[in-house]
């Protein structure tokens, strides 16, 4: 059986970062420390100056399978994710058909296993058909392995319905993840309400559309005690709401996307649909608050909201373009460049806490002997130039730019899935 030794990197363990070797064999981390290179069939990798930590986990990916495979599918998404340092992703349920029953959950997970490049977990809808009218079969979803429940793409607007879902899931220990955008306040809007929208004359979405939902939902957390997760947080006042809720001891967590950390409504001024997503890019003051929130931990994790759309869908006037951008491939570099986290906070935000929030058992473990061999090696001083996309789609705001930081190796279950020469299928 072959062994891999990651030599001399900054290794992220439960006790903190140590300068050490990491030995991997038979799908598990065997040892951390000074490892002797004895025996054949050993692959030694020089990790001097690199961070060696648990594989990244994205708890917000749109696989587009089933139903929209022309934009992306499990295989292409897995390849993109592996190149981005991910060893696990959570599939969002707004597919066609939507994932509101156990058999679609099992399908999604099994497709991930067939491709074999990382661990695919599945979220499940809160409401049947994602229609917002009655609850989905939460027990059926739970039995199939769903731990994160969301109607992502839409908000769960009916507070009474949401409360019942939260009461049910509170007993089980699941988490409700909310796409926090009030439909009335957001109606007809395409970008952030502010001076840029004012100059463009475009209908726009105020930050209040996000904060009113989160404020309301926090009341429901108080009522039910259910775990609650704010998806793709975009506005400074929402960060404050989350901070206050945490202060109070409520089980509230939050995620931020790489694009919200990197861009603002100023970037939308040219009306290029590559900058159109929901929630929209907001002001520089909001972006700064998101960066600070991620640094401090008020915002727990990075989640990409990787949302592929075909060229012909985005090559239209801004108002007609669908919302969403891709990002799995470059998330780590963008976060490193635009936020600049220390290695512990970095792996916490990219791996450990996402796995904890989504309850993915085999992922997000600080490296230790016996831990599963899901390892990502990251070069904080490397350069990632965004020129090509491994995804089926190309709808990203990053093209033509470069970011400090690069994924060097991705290893899933002891087998290398990505290295400099490319994704290893």
């Amino acid at each position, binding site marked *: 059986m072959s062994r891999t030794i990651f030599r001399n990197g900054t290794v992220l363990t439960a006790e903190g970062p140590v300068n050490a070797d990491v030995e991997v064999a038979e799908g598990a981390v065997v040892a951390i420390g000074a490892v002797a290179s004895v025996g054949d069939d050993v692959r030694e990798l020089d990790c001097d100056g690199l961070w060696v930590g648990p594989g990244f986990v994205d708890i917000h990916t749109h696989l587009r399978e089933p139903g929209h495979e022309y934009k992306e599918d499990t295989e292409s998404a897995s390849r993109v994710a592996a190149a981005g340092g991910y060893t696990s992703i959570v599939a969002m349920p707004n597919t066609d058909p939507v994932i509101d029953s156990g058999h679609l959950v099992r399908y999604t997970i099994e497709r991930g296993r067939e491709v074999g490049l990382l661990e695919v977990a599945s979220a499940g809808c809160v409401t049947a058909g994602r229609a917002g009218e009655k609850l989905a079969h939460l027990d059926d979803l739970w039995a199939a392995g769903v731990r994160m429940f969301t109607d992502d793409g839409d908000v769960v607007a009916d507070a009474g319905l949401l409360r019942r879902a939260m009461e049910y899931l509170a007993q089980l220990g699941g988490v409700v993840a909310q796409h926090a955008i009030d439909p009335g306040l957001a109606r007809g809007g395409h970008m952030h309400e502010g*001076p840029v929208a004012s*100059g*463009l*004359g*475009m209908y726009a979405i105020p930050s209040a559309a996000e904060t009113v939902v989160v404020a309301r939902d926090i009341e429901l957390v108080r009522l039910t005690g259910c775990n609650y997760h704010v998806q793709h947080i975009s506005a400074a006042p929402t960060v404050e709401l989350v901070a206050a809720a945490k202060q109070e001891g409520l089980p509230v967590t939050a995620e931020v996307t790489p694009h919200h950390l990197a861009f603002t409504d100023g970037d939308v001024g040219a009306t290029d649909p590559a900058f159109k997503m929901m929630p929209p890019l907001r002001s520089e003051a909001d972006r700064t608050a998101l960066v600070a929130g991620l640094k401090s931990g008020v915002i727990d994790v990075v989640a990409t909201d990787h949302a592929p759309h075909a060229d012909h869908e985005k090559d239209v*006037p*801004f108002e007609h373009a669908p919302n969403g951008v891709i990002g799995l491939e470059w998330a780590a570099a963008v976060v490193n460049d635009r936020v600049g986290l220390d290695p512990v906070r970095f792996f916490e935000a990219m791996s450990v806490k996402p796995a904890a929030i989504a309850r993915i058992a085999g992922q997000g473990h600080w490296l230790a002997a016996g831990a599963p061999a899901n390892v990502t090696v990251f070069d904080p001083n490397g350069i990632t130039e965004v020129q090509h996309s491994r995804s089926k789609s190309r709808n990203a705001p990053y093209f033509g730019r470069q970011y400090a930081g690069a994924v060097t190796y991705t290893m899933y279950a002891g087998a290398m899935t990505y290295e400099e020469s490319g994704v290893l299928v």
Partner: protein
Amino acid sequence: MNHLLTTQDLDRDQLTMLLDTADGMVSLLERDIAKAPTLRGKTVATMFFEPSTRTKLSFDKAAKALSADVMSFTASSSSLSKGESLKDTVLTVQALGVDLMVVRHGATGAPWRVAEWVDVPVVNAGDGAHQHPTQALLDSLTLRQHFGTLDGVKIGIVGDIRHSRVARSNVFAFATLGADITLIAPPTLLPVANSEWPVRTTSELDDALTGLDAVYLLRVQSERGGASVFPSLGEYRARFGLTAERFKRLKPDAVVLHPGPMIRGVEIDAVVADDPRALVLDQVTNGVAARMAVLYHLLGGEADV
């Protein structure tokens, strides 16, 4: 200039150049044979994805006055209803052989996308509530003809500014030319987050009136949500209409402009509309001249301004 998409891209020299040429074109239009051979052999495509009569006719006339051929496309009669994308539509028209495209579209930024897809100059004839640069040119020309300059001229823009591409184009053009601008509208019709606009704002027409040299009246745009934010047209007239009584309180040499079409008895009383100080018909003539100037400068060889 490669394209004319927004007045925000035009500096004072460029605006002045266009206005000067437009003046030259006015004199052409005053002749018996109001035609010159300048654009002979060129084809101008007018692509109106949003309905329009006056602007389309104005561009049509402008192109023909310079002897260009006109190819006319309107959304209702088109392939768009068969599911063809905007991109394919403009590429098809380009392949038919055109030298310039005039585009009006309901979606903000559409002319910018068209400019990315085609190899010919693009003129924005109105995109969403964003820009309508040739309107700003003809309005600037009309004011300049009357006052000699726009420097220091006190202009009040009245009405549904929030949803108005005419207002957005005019504000930036007038400001670049040195005018002093006040936006007058109820709070629901002032632009949101407008603190960076080069204007002052008020919701009291009566206070602002007596200091103005020019009153620019916008239409109440029911098709763009304007009427739905106002209780009734009668209420609109009472608070923001240029009534005969308000007209009397203007400075004796103040003028009135309106982009058309006017709804007499709402934004403007009939007797005011017919007064010689209402320059609406001059605006229409100047519209053809301004558009001729734009076509001339965009289709001229290797222009570097």
